[in-house]
């Protein structure tokens, strides 16, 4: 089911949570809403579910305006961060709940409901746990049950609100791969909210980066990582270093020296240079490069992260060096970013 969000605005007590958001989700797509807390991603998800009503704008399911449909009518599967399982019901009853509360004419037989519950348990790899109570399961298992419960109603859209947020890193990674598999088997249009960029980039077909109630960028993992369209996205996705520079006729200047990087299409004046700490080349001499004093160095997994103080105002940037690299012992390091992006100052 295609889902189309058209110019939606949402205010809570006059406090705007979403400004004029539009988003088209294609049928069968797996989309991540990624952003820091307070960016409006959960609000957007709840608007799609019908747990909130938009102040303005409309939400279409296919060609049908669902804005004024109730939650119950929308037939969405929603998975909550803290599972929200019914703890007085067995796992089997939890999964069958959505079918059991259907009006008599569309309600399957009891045996059919039970069969469906056990099929779904197989799908989420918890076969044979029908009789358990949620309290007897681990966090990861509970979230699987919550997903099975959401899938039981054959939802038009599957919505997950920080589904792995309450789980530890190991389980998260495992469930992430597993969710991808489930998505590929069932083909449900899926939207999930996360503040974990690794999760979003690894899992989603497209990532929607949000900040302060607006969508900053929509694109594949490659798009948002390699071609961020705003300083926010550059800073939020992946590691990044920023350095204030000056643009003069398409050349970048640091104080009174050019650093040998071009900046087409950027107006003259103050700007900010963004680059990835690992995506640099070290230089020996310095005719057109960035040079700085080593201020600190940390070992991070397979690399050494070095903090440099640059220029008279001691602007700090980070670069990454291979662990054994001799440059880490030097007091001064000169480098030039291989790939970078320059944003005019007012946008930063």
């Amino acid at each position, binding site marked *: 089911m295609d889902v189309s969000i058209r110019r939606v605005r949402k205010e809570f007590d006059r406090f705007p949570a979403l400004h004029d958001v539009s988003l088209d989700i294609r049928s069968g797509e797996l989309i991540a809403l990624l952003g820091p807390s307070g960016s409006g991603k959960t609000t957007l998800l709840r608007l799609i*579910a*019908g*747990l909130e009503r938009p102040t303005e704008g409309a939400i279409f399911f296919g060609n049908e305006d669902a804005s004024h449909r109730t*939650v*119950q009518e*929308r*037939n*969405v*599967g*929603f998975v*909550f961060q*803290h599972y*929200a*399982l*019914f*703890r*007085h*019901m067995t796992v089997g009853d939890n999964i069958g*709940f*959505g079918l059991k*509360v*259907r009006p008599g004419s569309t309600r399957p037989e009891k045996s059919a409901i039970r069969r469906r519950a056990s099929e779904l348990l197989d799908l989420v790899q918890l076969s044979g746990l029908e009789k358990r*109570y*949620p*309290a*007897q399961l681990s966090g990861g298992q509970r979230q699987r049950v*919550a997903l099975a*419960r*959401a899938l*039981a*109603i054959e939802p038009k859209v599957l919505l997950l609100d920080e589904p792995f947020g309450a789980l530890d890193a190991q389980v998260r990674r495992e469930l992430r791969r597993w969710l991808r598999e489930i998505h590929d088997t069932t083909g449900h249009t899926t939207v999930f909210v996360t503040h974990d960029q690794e999760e979003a980039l690894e899992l989603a077909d497209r990532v929607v980066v949000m900040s302060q109630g607006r969508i900053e960028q929509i694109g594949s993992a490659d798009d948002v990582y390699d071609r961020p369209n705003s300083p926010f996205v550059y800073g939020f996705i992946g590691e990044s270093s920023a350095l204030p520079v000056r643009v003069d006729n398409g050349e970048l200047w640091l104080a009174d020296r050019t650093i040998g990087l071009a900046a087409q299409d950027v107006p003259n004046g103050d700007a900010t240079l963004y680059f990835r700490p690992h995506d640099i080349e070290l230089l020996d001499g310095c005719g057109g490069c960035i040079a700085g004093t080593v201020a600190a160095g940390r070992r991070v997994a397979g690399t050494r992260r070095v903090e440099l103080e640059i220029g008279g105002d001691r602007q700090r940037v980070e670069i990454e060096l291979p662990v054994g690299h001799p440059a880490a012992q030097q007091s001064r390091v000169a480098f030039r970013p291989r790939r970078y992006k320059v944003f005019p100052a007012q946008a930063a």
Partner: protein
Amino acid sequence: MAAAAAPKRWQFKRPSVIPGFGLTLGFTIAYLTLIILIPLSGVVWRTAALGWGDFWAIATDERTITALEISFGAALIAAAVNVVFGVMLAWVLVRYRFPGRRIVDAAVDLPFALPTAVAGIALAAIYAPNGWVGQLLAPLGIKVAFTPFGIVVALIFIGLPFVVRTVQPVMEEIDREVEEAAATLGATRFQTISRVILPGLAPAVLTGFALAFARAVGEYGSVIFIAGNIPYVSEIAPLLIVIRLEEFNYAGATAVAAIMLAISFAMLFVINLIQAWSRRRYGYGV
């Protein structure tokens, strides 16, 4: 490692980092003994002085049996009524914000504070055939004051806060997300309440029921003013005990007391077992 390898021996106390087990358990037992067990065993002791024959005669005496039936029957009905309306009242207090909510909230506790005799007199005055409510009911042929029905009314009055106060905090803890989950699965509001919320409240409701029931069984002050106290009709067991005492028939009084004690203990014990079972199952505060 050695500890792990050692054969498992039954231990009275499991090793724990929390100190003071001996001290607190000792204090608990001493305190319970002093305050509850010694007085109650006095009841049994006194009754034992009767011998089986006499005890059986008192226990099977029709007046005793009717009084016990009225006491336990009225207490059960009152506790059941309190469960229904107490849960509703708690729901209103927890879920809605309205002017005067705090006053209602405070008023719930009044039956705790009011001398029960005052409550009994007030209820009797209101429900008497010439009272405010009584005169409205009289034309319908409903008599409340001075009938077993009056006893139930008095017991409802004194038991209400127990249900409200046990259910309220649990209700406040209910996760909004659980209701939202039910809604996304297609459950109507009514289905959400009846299938998700109320069953989740069951252990708290059961506790409230047990407390209200226990309180109602032992109630004396308010009931004697509204019940009419007609033997075989509206005479409660606690009153029968007092009557026996006034006749200086101490053995007879303690016999009735011992029977009440046994029944109450058995019922509360069963209720506790049900609770423990449901707690374990649903994982509430294990």
